[in-house]
């Protein structure tokens, strides 16, 4: 069996007395699209924060391509090929659309401040490359983030465009695995449909492995190779969408059981 690209091995994380993630094992293979679902408070975003190094797991190991990434700073983990978007959008609001994407190429470029000021060849070349990356990543969304929007500040974008810009920014870090935190949240049905196609397109064009948190079951059904269901930090089901959607424990987690209601 091929080695999984991302591997969570018996990972636990607690905040005080609250066990957010307990003994979680997840494998994501290269090129796969895996959805993480679960009711509010199930620990989905905490899972992302653990993978990207924002939190350090209490126990267990997280491996990227067989190498442990536990304890690395978030920017180091991103440099190794893990990029994420945020559920609560976290763009650089006062920078232009282009600069948002160019800023994310920091980890791929190496010119020192000294070289940049003197405009030495390496700084000039990297600047040109960053500009090309921004152009490439933004044109992925057609004209929506191009043209006159190019130099507009990010705060002038609509909600849906901000979500798109977050994805463009994440892909500019040259990731191998993309973590999308509720990419369709707050979108209307047309835009949600578009996001579904977009995620598939991301894999096809960029070759990214994608781990996505999503509440919209149509999106989950449309994109996922595999679905992982969490509840109270425990993996309660894993498999294809049909398997997970019909799993009694998943139904119970979302809807509760008849017995519970009677109590």
């Amino acid at each position, binding site marked *: 069996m091929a080695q999984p690209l991302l591997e969570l091995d018996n990972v636990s994380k607690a905040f005080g007395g609250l066990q957010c993630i307990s003994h979680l094992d997840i494998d994501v293979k290269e090129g796969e699209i895996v959805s993480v679902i679960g009711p509010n408070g199930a620990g989905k975003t905490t899972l992302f924060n653990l993978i*990207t190094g*924002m939190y350090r797991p209490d126990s267990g190991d997280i491996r990227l391509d067989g190498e442990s990434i536990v304890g690395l*700073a*978030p*920017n180091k983990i*991103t*440099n190794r090929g893990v*990029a*994420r978007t*945020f559920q609560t959008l*976290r*763009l*650089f*609001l*006062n*920078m232009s659309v282009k*600069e*948002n994407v*160019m*800023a*994310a*190429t*920091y*980890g*791929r470029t190496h*010119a020192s*401040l000294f070289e*940049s*000021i003197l*405009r030495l060849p390496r*700084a000039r070349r990297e*600047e040109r490359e960053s500009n090309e990356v921004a152009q490439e990543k933004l*044109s*992925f*969304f*057609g*004209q*929506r983030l*191009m*043209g*006159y*929007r190019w130099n*507009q*500040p990010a*705060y*002038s974008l*609509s909600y*849906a465009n901000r979500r798109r810009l977050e994805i463009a*920014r*994440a892909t*500019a*870090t040259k990731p191998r695995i993309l973590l999308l935190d509720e990419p369709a949240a707050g979108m*209307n049905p*047309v*835009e949600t449909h*578009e996001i579904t*196609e*977009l995620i598939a*397109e991301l894999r096809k*064009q960029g070759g990214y492995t994608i781990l996505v948190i999503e509440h919209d079951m149509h999106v989950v059904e449309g994109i996922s190779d595999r679905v992982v269901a969490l509840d109270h930090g425990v993996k309660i089901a894993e498999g294809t969408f049909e398997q997970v959607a019909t799993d009694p424990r998943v139904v119970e987690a979302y809807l509760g059981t008849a017995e519970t209601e009677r109590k």
Partner: protein
Amino acid sequence: MSEQTPQPERSGPAIGADEWVARSGERARQRTGIVGRVQELYERVPKPAVFAFVVLLAVLVPLVTAQTDNDIYFLRVGTVALVFALLALGLNVAVGFAGLLDLGYIAYYGIGAYGYAFLSSDKFGIHWQAWLVLPLVVAVSALLGLLLALPSRRLVGDYLAIVTLFFGQIFYIIATQGYRISFLGLNEDLGFDRANWDLTGGPNGIANVDRLGVFGLEASSERAYFYITLTAVVVVFAVLTLANRSRTGRAWRALNDDTLAAQAMSMPVNWLKLLAVGVGAAVAALAGTINAALLQGAFPDDYNTQVLIIIYAMVILGGAGSLAGAVLGAFVVSVLMLEGLRPQTPIGDFTGNGRWVFYATILVVLVAAIRPWRRLAAILAGIVAFGVVVHAMVAVTTDRGTDGLLNMGPDEYSGGGPLGWLIRHWLALPAGTYELGSRNWFNFALVGLIALVLCLTVVKGWKRDALIVPTVWLAGFVWETRLAQETSGPTRFLLLGALLVGLMIARPQGLLGRPRVEIV
């Protein structure tokens, strides 16, 4: 580009793709009329051309001034303003770009000055050449900036401010108390000749510091220092502009907007913070070196918290994050306000500049804050009419209620020329305005003015417009009867504060700053 567009063809309005709607914000900001046309013309001029033009103007300043005492004072004001411009540029890196509230900045300015004084004065008998001292002091200061920022790199906002303020205060205490340093009482055993070792000269500072010199050439004239400082400002401005456009500059601005996201997007935020503080420290040390050579001494009170706050005022007034704004802010605060409000020049000439600064600032604030122009015109007309009516009423009802003169100098009270005539017929200055007994009575006017300003912050709409009229009049009255006499010392700084508050209310983003959005 269009081949890889993934979105399917769809009829109906495309969401988020309407250019007219998306540009509504830009249109709202655009001015119409003459102001708009001038703005449009200005925006068409390439930025380097504007930069070159301003530099050229600055280069011409010493050439058009003759070498009279008053001109030398004038030139010194310019040099001091340039030193402040340098400081504002440096502070802008940490505060404007990276968004770090660094209150220890003043220490690096002081380290530059004292470092130069240690290595180029009789204090320790060392007289190194400037070309050797300058890079050394700048490098040491930058390194110290990195080191001091190291323990506070994880702090943000208020916490960072508290810790860095502590660093700044430590420097000031070392500077003022450093004339009796005792190494655990072991001075003599360690080979120092006295029980209290003198490092900084304490409150007296270090005097007789060498002038800047290169290979035997020594800069001794005011002109030379003006040009040296101007060169430093131009170089630092260019360097910081290029830095701002580089990947590092983008990363600074990114972590200013959202540190967590910046880190998730591969930026090493802790290192970037250290770098921002370090670059700022280098610029501050350069300014300190120039200042020590200019004053031929290093004195602790030039490097205290009060000076720090003034530099902050410059950066914030100019617009944090804008380099041109930092320079403009430095000039407005140091030339127009600090020097302009001075009642006397150091060589003893009385200047009536304070009066101009005061009325001009009020006018600028009104023009900037009140829209549309019809409302502004009505308020200005109201202010004039109010004064004339009050003047007439006082003239009729009292005996010598409008016979007052203007304060034109330490012991001179006169009509004050055409402007004075206007002011005397607008305000109702009673005879004997400046006699000792009457001045206590005018305190009530000051209290009344404060009450009116407080009321202004509460009321809205036409009531506010109406209230502006007597407030401005009373402000003029208070200025002529009390403040024109007292614009030395603390009163000058109080006035500076009041004028800054007025300007910031009129333009919260600063003179050249762009409005920032925090959370939408």
